[in-house]
């Protein structure tokens, strides 16, 4: 008798755990996000306060989320997908995981090169992949473009992280778009030839390696320089202040930029709420939060930059529409391998 009761209890608990995942709540939006910043969660809370729409969030690795969306198919609970890489966004669109948004508001706020022409996704912040150099050892006049970094004068002086990194992969896609696959292979070989050390560590580590005298110039995301300048470790702040930031390719196609993008998923049960959340993220208030607290450039062209971004200076971003980079990602990856850029 006693034992039967226990089995019942266990069954009850199991059922209860299953039921807890039932969603009967009408006013929600379910978000799969590859970003994991406190700014995002802060803005989601603010959005809930303003609209009464509850934001349910799963944060995981972008590629895992794409895979999960694919596996879930029609039954996916997700309404909205967020990722910090244009290449991944394009891939998920090509896999049929997204649906077009209502273009009305987005068209007015976001420049055409930062969004999909058919409004399957839109960027909401952008980051530039720039050169960071030691002010005492490098004269910024010597620097010019990603391509020029392969010239012999930089031999043994260039620092860059592994090709496993999304930002490098999308940068490579932009190089392929500009020079074709053969040109991109030459470029990659040139960079590998000029590397001060084999790729290791993250973007911060590249900057530290400059400080340690391993190399003179590093390819780094602006966002990480923002983090270093505001690091809790005073020595990291000191190092960041010794460094200059240079926006490459200002005389031709412009500096490579990447976006954090948002999209509505193909089978979104709460489509309208997702649309509202995306428009909220593009609103001036939210855009300022990203810019001030996360050192990202606003995608909304009407929003003013905070002091730090202004200090780094205005720059011309690469004008190639980001949606055209998708097809170059995979060839770019093979080029990395062929050039021995691990």
């Amino acid at each position: 008798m006693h034992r039967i009761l226990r089995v019942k209890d266990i069954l009850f608990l199991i059922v209860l755990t299953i039921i807890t995942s039932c969603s009967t709540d009408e006013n929600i939006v379910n978000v799969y996000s590859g970003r994991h910043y406190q700014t995002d969660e802060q803005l989601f809370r603010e959005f809930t306060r303003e609209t009464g729409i509850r934001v349910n969030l799963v944060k995981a690795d972008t590629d895992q989320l794409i895979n999960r969306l694919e596996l879930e198919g029609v039954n996916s609970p997700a309404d909205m997908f967020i990722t910090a890489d244009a290449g991944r966004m394009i891939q998920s669109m090509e896999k049929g995981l997204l649906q077009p948004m209502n273009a009305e508001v987005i068209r007015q706020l976001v420049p055409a090169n930062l969004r999909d022409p058919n409004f399957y996704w839109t960027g909401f912040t952008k980051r530039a992949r720039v050169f960071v150099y030691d002010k005492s050892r490098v004269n910024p006049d010597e620097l010019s473009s990603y391509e020029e970094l392969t010239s012999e004068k930089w031999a043994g002086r260039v620092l860059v992280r592994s090709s496993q990194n999304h930002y490098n992969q999308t940068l490579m896609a932009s190089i392929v778009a500009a020079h074709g696959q053969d040109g991109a292979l030459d470029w990659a070989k040139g960079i590998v030839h000029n590397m001060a050390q084999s790729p290791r560590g993250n973007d911060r580590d590249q900057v530290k390696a400059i400080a340690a005298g391993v190399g003179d110039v590093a390819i780094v995301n602006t966002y990480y320089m923002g983090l270093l300048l505001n690091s809790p470790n005073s020595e990291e702040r000191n190092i960041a202040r010794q460094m200059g930031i240079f926006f490459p390719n200002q005389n031709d196609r412009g500096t490579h930029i990447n976006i954090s993008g948002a999209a509505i998923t193909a089978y979104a049960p709460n489509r309208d709420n997702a649309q509202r959340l995306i428009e909220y993220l593009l609103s001036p208030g939210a855009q300022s939060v990203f810019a001030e607290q996360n050192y990202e450039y606003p995608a909304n062209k009407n929003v003013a930059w905070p002091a730090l971004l202004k200090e780094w200076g205005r720059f011309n971003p690469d004008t190639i529409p980001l949606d055209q980079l998708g097809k170059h990602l995979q060839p770019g990856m093979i080029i990395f391998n062929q050039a021995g850029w691990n």
Partner: protein
Amino acid sequence: MLSLQMHRQLTNPWIWGAMFAALIIALPLLVVFSNILIPGDDTWMHILKNLIPTYVINTLILMAGVALLTFIMGVSTAWLVSMYSFPGRKFFSWALIMPIALPAYISGFTWAGILDYTSPVYVFLRNHLGVDTGQYLFFNIHSIPGAIIILSLALYPYVFLISRAYFSRQSSTLFEVAASLGKKQSQIFFGVALPLARPAIVAGVSLALMEVLNDYGLARYFGVDTFTTGIFTAWFAFSHPQSALKLSAYLMIFVLALIILERTQRGKMRYDMLGAAYRPIKRTTLDNPKGVLALILCMIPFLLGFLIPLIMLSYWSSLTLVDVVDYRFTELLFNSFLLAAIASLVVTAFALFIAFTVRSFPSRFVRFLSRISTLGYALPGAVVAIGILIPFLWIDGMLTFFSSPGFRIALTGTWFALIFAYLVRFMAVGYNSIDSGMERISPSLDEASRSLGLSNMKTLGKINIPLLRGALISASLLVFIDVLKELPLTLILRPFNFDTLAIRAFEFASDERVAEAAPAAMIIIITGMVPVFLLNRLMAGKS
């Protein structure tokens, strides 16, 4: 005869139950494995030709290095604390387990932080003493040797814990006999103790190696290309999950082959204590030069694997505590602790049930299935997650029948799914500890119990469980801490708005904000210390 045996097997509820349980646990792994049948395309060929050869070599070097180091550190310290009395022995008998509470990738980040250009030590040397040692202090940790050292420091406790559970239950009779035959201490260790402890050592080292195989975070951060980074290159960089699963399938074959090889090589050797009257070990007191040496030997892995990283983490925490720790931390702690506790109970129970059945009712099929069901530990968590998502989503598809718009029933994204995932992932941890513990119990004890008319259930309860005490404690402890640290599975399978400490630490660390990751990492370690401490008291009390 055969048919009689088969008949017996087919009507035995234990065999049925174990078969069913092992099959359910193995199912996600079989899903992954089935990808081996999918023909390879151009991407697959590219990966196979250009990447895999170096990746395989790196992985083998890494495995050899970690096997050697964890063996040396784990067995020597376990032997010292079980056999001898020396200053600090009592402390080390539990403190040496602690490094396991530090996730390997956090340990990697921390050591990189200690040795890199902006570490407090380095800053002091540079700014106050004018020493300039270049980019790294001592040596470049972003390398294969660096990865071997960090992984070994994080993983030797598996070997230590299982060997210690073994040594401390070993009968002193054997050693006394050896000593009376004029053998020296070293000869007793290498000639008697080591060969006898083989099942325990193999169990521990193979857990460590499986962890090496599933590691992605540390290898990636250190820039060491291993087979597992290859799996993720295939998946993430080439966005080709099929190739990733296919590579994982080959990884499973490799691990299974290793397990079978070790078993066959062991042959018909038995490790139980039949014939040797059990007498608890009386620890020899080590006199002073030797006692201090033992102390130093135990100190090294503890300092490098635990105390020094902990000091660095506390320093970082002191910088970031105010900004990072918020009201949600109690919730994170609660989630982490509860998940780990439930999972450790579930895994230990299933492992005990299956291991006992395999022992009591020899059935090749169940034995094989049980081996398959432990392979989840060797695969990267993200791959296991795919194997779990596929059947769960299939069930969810069936459940939509009961749903209506605005009302969904689903298994995916529930605690249930998460606990099941941990069962698949950590079965090896429970099973290896318990199985090696059972090797030491003579089967004749079970037979005696049955011939006295006790049921299988009572035999398990009255004979095996009390004798397995140490092994059960190590099993549940290891699973508890493993779940506390677990990342990739939790990340993708968790319910909406659900966070754990490991996730919080990872989010900062992956964003290159190590100092901000420190408070969560500290709490993981402290939470991990609680059961280590409690269970150790429990074990000490009864043994």
